[in-house]
């Protein structure tokens, strides 16, 4: 089945984006990539150390699309600076904007995110902003030049699932940008649910990196995302409040 996702001029056949943080060792990353089938991987620039023998980027195969993120940025200015550093470090022109001012819940600052998106999209970056699922913000991000929007399902690292489901449903319905559910997804079933709803992709890290068997979990998410996407394309049957008889009693009237 041909069902590619196009973002920033790149054709993706996998709709599972993964992360690089929280692993017990960086050498797990290549195998996680293989088992997950993912083609896009986010990496925090703040963890990238080109001078280190264990530089995180050296563990990422060259066929992957790198999505450097601005983790640690508190303002639009910092996010812009980090994105420029990432590009000048040779990490490409994709960037996931992460502007977080709230160290308690790690919720994104949509206003600052929009400001950073305006600047970076104008500079030719493929901008994927991490955001709180708010329709007005999503529309402004689109106007600012975002290539997709990445609403959170629940706070980062919480594994709480799709707590913001209704808001994400509105984003999917009302924007024509790809909606990539990012953060909060803890179980493959939740990834499948996001895809069934019509999300273009999901991004997750904690659920795989902190699983007892990260490689098996990577496989589980690969299957779940694929299943959810197929279900969405197949068109889910309607949900009825009462039982619907398969042999109607009034059929003779037709």
């Amino acid at each position, binding site marked *: 089945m041909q069902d590619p996702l196009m973002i920033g001029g790149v054709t993706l056949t996998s709709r599972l984006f993964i992360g690089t943080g929280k692993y017990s060792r960086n050498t797990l990353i290549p195998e996680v990539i293989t088992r997950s089938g993912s083609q896009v991987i986010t990496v925090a*620039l*703040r*963890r990238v150390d080109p001078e280190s023998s264990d530089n995180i980027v050296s563990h990422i195969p060259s066929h992957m699309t790198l999505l450097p993120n601005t983790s640690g940025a*508190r303002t639009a200015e*910092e996010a*812009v*600076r980090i994105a420029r*550093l990432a590009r000048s470090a040779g990490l490409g022109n994709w960037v996931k904007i992460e502007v977080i001012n709230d160290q308690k819940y790690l919720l994104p600052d949509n206003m600052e995110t929009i400001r950073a998106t305006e*600047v970076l999209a*104008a500079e030719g970056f493929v901008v994927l902003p991490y955001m709180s699922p708010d329709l007005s913000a999503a529309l402004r991000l689109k106007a600012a030049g975002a290539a997709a929007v990445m609403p959170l399902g629940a706070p980062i690292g919480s594994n709480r699932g799709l707590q913001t489901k209704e808001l994400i449903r509105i984003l999917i319905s009302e924007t024509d940008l790809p909606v990539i559910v990012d953060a909060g997804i803890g179980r493959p079933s939740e990834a499948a649910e996001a895809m069934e709803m019509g999300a273009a992709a999901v991004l997750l890290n904690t659920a795989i990196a902190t699983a007892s068997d990260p490689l098996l979990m990577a496989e589980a998410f690969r299957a779940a995302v694929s299943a959810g996407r197929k279900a969405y394309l197949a068109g889910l049957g309607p949900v009825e409040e009462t039982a619907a008889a398969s042999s109607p009693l009034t059929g003779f009237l037709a």
Partner: protein
Amino acid sequence: MSFYETMTRLEQLPYGTLWSRYTAEDVKRALRAEQVDEEGLMALLSPAAEPYLEEMAQKAHRLTRTHFGHVMQLFTPMYLADFCVNHCTYCSFSSIYDFPRKKLTLEQVAREAETIAATGLRHILILTGESRRDSPAGYVRDCVDVLRGYFSSVSIEVNPLSTAEYAELREAGVDGLTLYQEVYHQETYRTLHVKGPKRVYRNRLDAPERGCEAGFRSVNIGALLGMYEWRQEALATALHARYLQDKYPECEIGLSTPRFRPYLGEFNPASDVTDRALVQIILAYRLFLPRSGISLSTREPAALRDHLVQLGITKMSAGVSTEVGGHSLEGGTPQFEISDNRSVAEMAEMLRSQGLQPVFKDWDILSEPLGLSRQAGLA
């Protein structure tokens, strides 16, 4: 409003009978809580929690792995100067001790930085004795200018400064502030700090808040455990951290758990903080503040540190010298005796053997003296 008001309230609590008020049910309630409140914190610090250390540890471990993953940030302190104008009864740098004081030249700072950076560390915490005359903010700023060439993040642990001075250092590229209250209990504080500006309790208590106001990315606080009753001191530290986190949500508030260590003098602390007590404190901090970093220093012995890495700790020092220029010069006086002498490489190996990834770099200094960040429509 300052944390001083909270301290005043805390000191009116009937500490003599307070801790025995908590029961096993209170501890279980705190363990079940989605978010531990002040009452829950007190239950977790109380004697009633002692039989529940394992349950606390299991939850603390899970919370830490969820929020921080399998990583441990490493850093090391660099002592720039040991001149001090205070007499604190528990510190080798006290002005009453007669030993050749040192202050690194900028060339020596560079040599020291080069030696430390060669170990792979990219995070540095610079320290001075408390002397505005010998190691003023301007000297620290000059050192930071040198250190930026070697490290991706520079934090300071110096005498309390004004908000303007902190802001100046932040502009110069300092990311973080560490400042220990040493003793939260006011009467004990006055007794232990005999002479010098450090006697002014509120100047020190409010300094972390001034650091938050000045815009440091991280502010790390702690009590020197052993100077007063540890349950009260841990309670004050945790509430201070929450106060700062609530008021300055953009700042990462971290906690440290230093225990008293032998030094030049003969002061014996009033409170003996056992290993079990230290564990209870770390676990209570983690359950109360699930996303806050918790640092563990080389004051603790290697064997204990190896166990504590699974209980909530997120940052550790490694390859430590508490002497001025201790990495590249000879013959300094240590501020206190450390217990874990392992090198950075040995620490990293220990962490890997426990399924943890040592992280040497977790930030880049982003301050731009040239004003680059004001370009591109962001002014």
